[in-house]
């Protein structure tokens, strides 16, 4: 090992306490940056997966123009829901599954009162593969829609309560549903009448049996929403064999833009492929904004750490002024002195960075194992599992070492620039 590095190393150990505090600043800084990034990562993944798995699907396919025309008669953008189309979509690399849907609105009545509803008609046999948590939170006594159902519905809990309907206690649902105790409903029956207009404006009505009531943290969903089998919507709306939307699940959410491009290419200009971010710009913006905030905080934290290290290094230079004078007078070159001090800073950076890295990773691992319970209005309750990407860990470590190096430049220059006579004379 180079003699200069050895001297630098020994200098670091000479004043252990001081080195310890400098190290701890770096360690705390890096560990905290890793932790907050990991928690933010998990929060983002949670919110996105929540939206994607429960409702949206990673990608959505519509007839061109649907997204821009959301407020005008969306049913007119119907298209053929054929096996060919599905096979075409599912043959694209990265696509996990696809499922057709119709989103429509209408009036629901129990014979005495009526209310507005927003319904999502889903292809029950396929929906689960696209949105594994499509059933969401059902109330006790509910049972999930089956692919054989054709005149059944799952209804928002508040909507059902107002219309005094509830499911007849049946076989419990299978699949990924969670069941929640709900306020008892004064049950009059379990049938409702739905009426809606076809794309051409013709009104039609049908009776459905309520199989489940859905709980949601969003009040609007409990008051207005409904899920029905696709076949029911197709006959009610006079849209046999047609859908307005195909939801697509992908293998890797991170690869979504590639899959989106491929799909668009395969389907041509007649269709438009949108990702969850296009459909829910609000969610995308929130995620983006939080990332920016975390980045700013990380940068400030690193600047602060840089300052503490520069501070200590400058003090070390002052403290050793006589020593530097001695070295200079016995013929050690200025460049070598600069290297000694610079290496000290770098050494602190590498060691501090390493300890910070280990501490941060252990912290992330522990919180990942235990999980952070999380719940907020608008989100399903769940557990956050903090995680980091390898790229970020490597980058954070490099930035930490770099910070330390930069912090060492100025004090090292200062040490190297001393006048031997003055330095020797100083106290």
């Amino acid at each position: 090992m180079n003699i200069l590095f050895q001297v630098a190393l020994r200098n670091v150990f000479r004043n252990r306490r001081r080195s310890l505090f400098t190290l701890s600043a770096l360690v705390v800084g890096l560990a905290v940056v890793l932790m907050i990034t990991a928690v933010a990562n998990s929060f983002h993944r949670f919110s996105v997966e929540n939206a994607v798995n429960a409702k949206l699907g990673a990608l959505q396919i519509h007839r061109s123009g649907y997204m821009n025309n959301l407020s005008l008669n969306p049913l007119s953008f119907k298209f053929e829901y054929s096996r060919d189309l599905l096979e075409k979509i599912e043959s694209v690399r990265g696509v996990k599954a696809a499922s057709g849907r119709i989103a429509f609105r209408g009036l629901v009545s129990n014979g005495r009162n009526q209310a507005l509803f927003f319904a999502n008609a889903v292809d029950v046999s396929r929906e689960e593969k696209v949105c594994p948590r499509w059933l969401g939170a059902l109330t006790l006594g509910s049972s999930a829609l089956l692919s054989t159902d054709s005149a059944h519905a799952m209804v928002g809990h508040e909507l059902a309560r107002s219309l005094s309907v509830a499911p007849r206690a049946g076989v419990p649902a299978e699949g990924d549903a969670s069941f929640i105790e709900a306020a008892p409903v004064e049950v009059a029956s379990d049938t409702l009448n739905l009426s809606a207009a076809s794309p051409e404006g013709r009104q039609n009505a049908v009776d459905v049996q309520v199989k489940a009531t859905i709980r949601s943290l969003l009040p609007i969903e409990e008051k207005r929403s409904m899920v029905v089998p696709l076949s029911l919507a197709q006959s009610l709306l006079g849209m046999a064999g047609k859908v307005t939307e195909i939801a697509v699940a992908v293998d890797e959410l991170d690869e979504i833009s590639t899959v989106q491009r491929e799909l668009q290419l395969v389907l041509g200009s007649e269709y438009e492929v949108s990702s969850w971010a296009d459909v829910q710009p609000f969610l995308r913006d929130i995620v983006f904004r939080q990332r920016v905030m975390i980045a700013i905080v990380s940068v400030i934290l690193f600047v602060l750490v840089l300052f503490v290290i520069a501070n200590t290094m400058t003090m070390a230079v002052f403290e050793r002024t006589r020593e530097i004078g001695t070295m200079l007078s016995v013929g050690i070159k200025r460049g070598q002195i600069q290297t000694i001090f610079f290496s000290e800073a770098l050494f602190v950076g590498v060691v501090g960075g390493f300890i910070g890295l280990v501490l941060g990773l252990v912290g992330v691992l522990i919180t990942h194992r235990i999980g952070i319970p999380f719940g907020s209005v608008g989100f399903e309750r769940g557990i956050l599992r903090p995680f980091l990407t390898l790229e970020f860990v490597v980058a954070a470590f490099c930035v930490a070492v770099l910070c330390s190096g930069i912090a060492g430049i100025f004090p090292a220059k200062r040490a190297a620039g001393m006048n031997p006579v003055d330095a020797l004379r100083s106290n």
Partner: protein
Amino acid sequence: MSPLVFMSARNLARNRRRTLLAMGAVVVGLCALTVLRGFVNSVQQAQLNTTLLGTTGMLQIHRSGYLKNVLSNPLDLAFEDSPELRNKILSAAHVRALAPRLQFSGSISVNEPMASDLANVGDAKTTFLTANAVDPELDRQTLPQQYEWLIEGMMFPRADSLALVVHRDIAGPLGVENVAANLQQPSETWPVVLAPDRDGSLSGEAFNVIGLLGSAVPTDKRLALAPLKSVQKLLKMDDQITEYVVRLDDVVHAAEVQKELEQRLGSDFEVSRWDEILPFIKDLIGNLTNIFDIISGVFLLVVMLGIINSMFMNVLERVREIGTMMAIGVKQGSILSLFVVEGVFLGALGALVGLLLGAGIVQLMSLIGIPISAPGSSLKFILRPFLTLDFVVTAFSFTTFGAALVSVWPAWRASRLRPVEALSAI
């Protein structure tokens, strides 16, 4: 001034360069903290103002059961907007303004001169609309923020105008986005609003679209503003409204005014606070505060590490001096205090400079203004960062107290030195 305090101040001044360096970390930390806080404050305020002064208001008054109502016709829960009722509300303490609103839904369609044949009915330019019928004067006093989202055109001047302000995203598809041109149009070509009244029968009236709203909240594309008197006439509901929106002089009084109004109005009415109507906004703001508190803690920790470091250096440098002091009979307690007071000075001075610097930057950012778009929309906000006295005092005392606390260790080491050894140290 006690000689101790005087001495510590002189000690700091003695090695100015080192003092400056040690203070540097405190200054940078506090400055960053202050700027960040100013920024977070403005973000939170923007979120709050959107709700309190733009969409929901601070308090809302409805007929009992209105908010829980699901069944189709909310108009059934309308009530009479009488001067007595208004006075009852306005005379309560802290109430600053009040706006009557009639919320209704219907459809809006635009006559398409070319599409006369029945085959094209499916393409008719019709869409659903949820509108707040408002008195323009009172609404502007109560929800002023709303008018900053008026991106084009203007608000209708009177409550009996025949004009609408709609969301930009539905004006485009309807083909009425050119509001300047709309003003020139004869009333036969105006869009028609069809709405069911309380009996369910449809009535229609032509309204000109004279203003466009941008979106500040993600799900309000179908929300429009309509003149109160005209809508009351259309729905055959003269003087009837569905809600009062109340603005207070300060939102902190919301709970207290809510109680007061509930007592005055009796059980026929329900008074709701903004955070009862939109609980997740409060959650969102609370989350941001929590995150910021954690970050502040980390910043202060790093700053404290810097102080403890330089205090040890301080002690190390003056070992001989400490020996001398002890030899001439200065008590251990006094030496301990001497160093702790030095630490306090360091922290307090650094905090002061950092806060001043930070406050300066915040002031500058506030003068320039930070343009930012609301999540999920293209509407620009100008953020104006600001600080509260509360934060300044807390940050200052935390730093000073923290500096005192972390100085105790080096100071204690100094006070435990053995005079003889200390004197013989180099």
